[in-house]
């Protein structure tokens, strides 16, 4: 079992390292085989070892990474039910995305670098998932950040791409700082960074401010990686990366790492009601914010990016409500249908002749039936059509909020439902703009590679059917996921009336959103983005705000330090010292002007002084 577990991590790492070091010397398809094979191998290893995770889980310590004083960080794995579910999802989706990428990147001259980074990403992500201590988790945490940086800016010749990568790195790193602070504090409190020990001993902190602050630090850390308010501005820009990257990193895995972190440390986080409320609020606020932004976007991938942000917001809401299984359920279903959506969007962009803008698409169904059906499958999941996986997982979160009963949670429920309506609306807006009417662009289609279609089929099936994972009792299910995660307390026991009411509401907002989109976008009308539309298109102008409030002062401080203090004060002082020395030297130099009579005067005065001194001494004594 240990071998299989190590293989889960080692295969993607080895694939990445081999490709990074020797990929360019290997004949053309070999790096792709290595990359894809290693991830599929990792998936198989995951499947093979999943039984070990049942119940209490499986632990494995490989070696000591850092040991000093009373601080120890091992490279150790904790393969418990939560980690197993996540690892299965990550490796499974990553395998399909690697297959897709093999087709997508077929003609790219630099595909070795792409696959090396993609493999390293999978390794780093699995490190987050499997790490048994916070420092190793942090290694993965920063590792995915680096890979995301390298992959967003993959087509680096265009400055905007590289800039988007840098923005993602720096904004997420702001979140990482809070995570690091939490890590330091936790070590100071418990003398260890082992996740299990911290969770086990977290109860000691119950009711203290410390635990609230810790949970808030972790929340901020999670916000960075998961693109939640206020650290969300990087995600839409990250769409500059190749589409498989958007599907893997910015939809299915990395952006959900924050949710996973909060779930991993849930026993600690859940001790603070205040922090839980904050998590729920951040979640619902982001969900609503991103949904409104998605309404106005022009680029197909940006619509999906905002929808990702919004759906991750739901997951945060679920964590804030105290339902780990609802969060993980939505995380998994979302991973399936969002990866599907991104990859079909890649096909659509190809079919539209490398056109991103949905205003210049339309009539895409004529160009490919298969893509139409696949994209629709993803969209209905996202919109929450009844019986799709997205319907069940979103509904579970909303029902949990509703079931809490108090006013605060009713409010959260209300906002969640509003967001669901908006989601349905922008999904069908997208559908009508992309498939409705006739093609509005000029480009000829560029048929997608067969490898870009087949891996999507399993994802579509999973997206439509993954609701079975946690089917509620109402529909004859057994809430399998909650049971597997040993989170029976997450299972709702509502009266039938309430259940039907909630389901009816969910179906209602779905239909409402569809109807509204049907009325508005059935026929294409071009609008200049102005006023509110422009405001939403720009993501509520947060970029401009941050540029003014953070970036500009930062640059000014840099200029002040380098020009004001460094060259001004410090160099100025030094130059002043030097100039004083030189001028004194010059003045003294005039004494030695080579005229004998001046020297003789000097001699005379000197003699007089000395003699005078001795006389004075003689008189005084």
């Amino acid at each position: 079992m240990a071998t299989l577990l190590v293989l889960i991590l080692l295969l993607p790492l080895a694939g990445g390292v081999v490709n990074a070091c020797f990929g360019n010397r290997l004949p053309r398809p070999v790096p792709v085989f290595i990359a894809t094979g290693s991830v599929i191998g990792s998936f198989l290893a995951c499947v093979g070892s999943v039984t070990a995770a049942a119940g209490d889980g499986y632990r494995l310590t490989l070696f000591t990474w850092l040991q000093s004083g009373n601080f120890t960080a091992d490279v150790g794995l904790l393969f418990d039910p939560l980690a197993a579910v996540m690892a299965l999802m990550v490796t499974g989706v990553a395998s399909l995305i690697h297959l897709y990428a093999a087709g997508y990147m077929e003609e790219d001259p630099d595909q070795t670098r792409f696959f090396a980074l993609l493999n390293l990403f999978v390794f780093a992500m699995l490190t987050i998932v499997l790490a048994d201590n916070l420092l190793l988790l942090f290694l993965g945490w920063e590792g995915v950040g680096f890979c995301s940086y390298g992959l967003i800016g993959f087509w680096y010749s265009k400055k905007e791409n590289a800039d988007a990568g840098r923005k993602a790195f720096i904004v997420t790193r702001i979140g990482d700082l809070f995570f690091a602070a939490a890590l330091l504090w936790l070590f100071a409190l418990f003398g260890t960074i082992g996740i299990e020990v911290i969770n086990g001993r977290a109860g000691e902190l119950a009711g203290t401010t410390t635990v609230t602050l810790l949970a808030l630090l972790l929340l901020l850390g999670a916000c960075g990686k998961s693109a939640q308010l206020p650290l969300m501005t990087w995600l839409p820009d990250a769409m500059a990366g190749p589409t498989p990257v958007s599907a893997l990193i910015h939809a299915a895995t990395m952006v959900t790492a924050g949710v996973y972190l909060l779930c991993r440390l849930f026993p600690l986080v859940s001790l603070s009601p205040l922090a839980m409320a904050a998590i729920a609020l951040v979640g619902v606020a982001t969900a609503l914010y991103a949904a409104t932004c998605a309404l106005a976007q022009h680029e197909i991938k940006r619509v999906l990016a905002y929808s990702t942000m919004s759906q991750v917001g739901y997951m945060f809401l679920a964590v804030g409500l105290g339902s780990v299984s609802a969060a993980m359920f939505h995380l998994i279903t979302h991973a399936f249908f969002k990866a599907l959506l991104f990859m079909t969007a890649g096909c659509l962009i190809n079919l539209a002749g490398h056109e991103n803008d949905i205003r210049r698409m339309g009539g895409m169904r004529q160009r490919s039936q298969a893509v139409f059906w696949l994209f629709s499958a993803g969209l209905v999941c996202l919109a929450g059509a009844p019986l799709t996986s997205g319907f069940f997982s979103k509904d579970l979160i909303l029902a949990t909020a509703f079931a809490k009963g108090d006013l605060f949670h009713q409010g959260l429920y209300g906002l969640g439902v509003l967001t669901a309506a908006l989601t349905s609306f922008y999904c069908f807006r997208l559908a009508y703009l992309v498939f409705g009417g006739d093609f509005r662009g000029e480009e000829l289609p560029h048929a997608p590679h067969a490898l870009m279609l087949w891996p999507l089929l399993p994802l579509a099936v999973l997206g439509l059917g993954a609701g079975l994972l946690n089917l509620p009792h109402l529909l004859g299910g057994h809430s399998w996921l909650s049971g597997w995660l040993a989170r029976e307390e997450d299972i709702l026991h509502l009266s039938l009336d309430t259940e039907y009411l909630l389901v009816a509401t969910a179906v209602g907002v779905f239909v409402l959103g569809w109807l509204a989109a049907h009325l508005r976008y059935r026929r294409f009308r071009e609008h200049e983005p102005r006023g509110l539309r422009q405001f939403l298109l720009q993501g509520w102008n947060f970029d401009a705000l941050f540029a003014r409030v953070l970036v500009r002062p930062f640059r000014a401080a840099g200029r002040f330090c380098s020009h004001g203090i460094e060259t001004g004060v410090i160099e100025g002082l030094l130059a002043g010292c030097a100039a004083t020395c030189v001028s004194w030297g010059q003045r003294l130099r005039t004494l030695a002007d080579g005229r004998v009579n001046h020297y003789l005067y000097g001699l005379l005065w000197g003699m007089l002084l000395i003699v005078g001194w001795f006389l004075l001494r003689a008189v005084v004594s």
Partner: protein
Amino acid sequence: MLATDFSILSLLLWLPVAGALVCLVTGSRAPSVPRWIALVTAVLVLVGALLLMLVHDRSGGWMLLEDRTWIEAFGIRYTLGLDGISLLLIVLTAFMQVMAVLVSWRQDKAPQVFFALLLVLETAVIGVLLALDLILFYLFWELMLIPMFFLIGIWGYERRFYAAVKFFLFTLVGSLCLLLAVIGLYLLHGAQTGVYTFALEALKQTELSAGQELLFFLCFMAAFAVKVPLFPFHSWLPDAHAEGPPAGSVDLAGLLLKTGVYGMIRFAFPLFPAAAQKFLPVLAVLALVGLFYAAWVAFSQLDIKRIVAYSSISHLGFVILGLAAWNQIAVEGSLLLMVNHAITTGGMFAAIAMIQLRTGTRDLNQLGGLWKSQPNLAAFFLLFSMASLGLPGLANFAGEILILIGVFSVKPLWALFAVGGILMSAVYTLRMVQGTLWGASCEPFDRRDLDAREWGILIPLALLVVLLGCYPQPLLDVLREPVSALLLTGGQP
């Protein structure tokens, strides 16, 4: 302790000087000979140091000690001692020296003198790391200046003379304070005990009033703080880096800066523990200010060598912060970061030299898109940059996190500030990477990627960066006992 007549330490110490003499003698006839002699000598020293690493025992005391009378009239002795800390730094020195020789392989301006000076510099640094007699230490300390002065002043770029003089004056002023304090301490000790000696162990026993102790401590620290360099005594370093030859930069970053920190922990803290303990908060504040200040200045630079120079100041701020925390984890972290920083920054400077060779510039506005023309070189540059911004799994992070943990246990607020420094390093490093590797290609006039010699330089550095990031434990094991011994002598907070 091994006590043998055959003195391994002296052999190790004077081997480079012997090599330097051979360089001078043979070099005038065949210009390609000196570099081979330098390389062989440097490799021999490295092998010797590594052998010592293998045989050393890990009990806290001196592993090797050599003690001879030298100038009896003044009680000056020739005392060399090796413990875990100096051993580790000597291995580092020897390794970086091999890199420095390889980096300047194509040096054709008076190569015999150039390589001889490099080797003399190595002896001086090893001497500093071994000497246990204060006069002997001072001599080696000053000896470091001379070869470096000429290396910058003769083999540097346009403003080399300015940079060399600035370097010399800065460090000389610091060193003079040190000399005065050493003599003062010697006289006081002699007056108290009747035994006039410069031996470190004896001088530790000197009874000092609080005022005297603080004064001496500050004099010692003046010399060391300039060398580190600690804010605000840093302004010589960017010039020395920017104007110095590539090997000079590698040696500055890899060897010279380390001697400042070494001086603090070997001499300043153990000799004046009470003053040191009082001074720790000041040290921490200077370190923290320097950490942010240098990062901000780095952010506004255009010359990539200057960016790396300021990043050195910023990282050394981290190191000093770890010292200021004065506990096992933080000090081990500081020493580890020092080693890691040397390797990372050495790699950076080597890569920058190769970039400059191909593009003829180090200006961020003119560089760009190097990944297109030189993917291999660019990949190494990226790796070192990532290590420098503290990516976990690469070298610097291991030291930084230990420092943060150690500092947090004493002064949580300091650690929280320092965490912010990690963000700063990302900001300026990514700006540099952005301007160098990405964007439109700057069309270098030499489009060749790495040649065999350059691979030979970058691969060992890159391997070490990864290895020290993933498995720094052997180094920490070497440091454990000496550091806990040091913490005992350096006083308790």
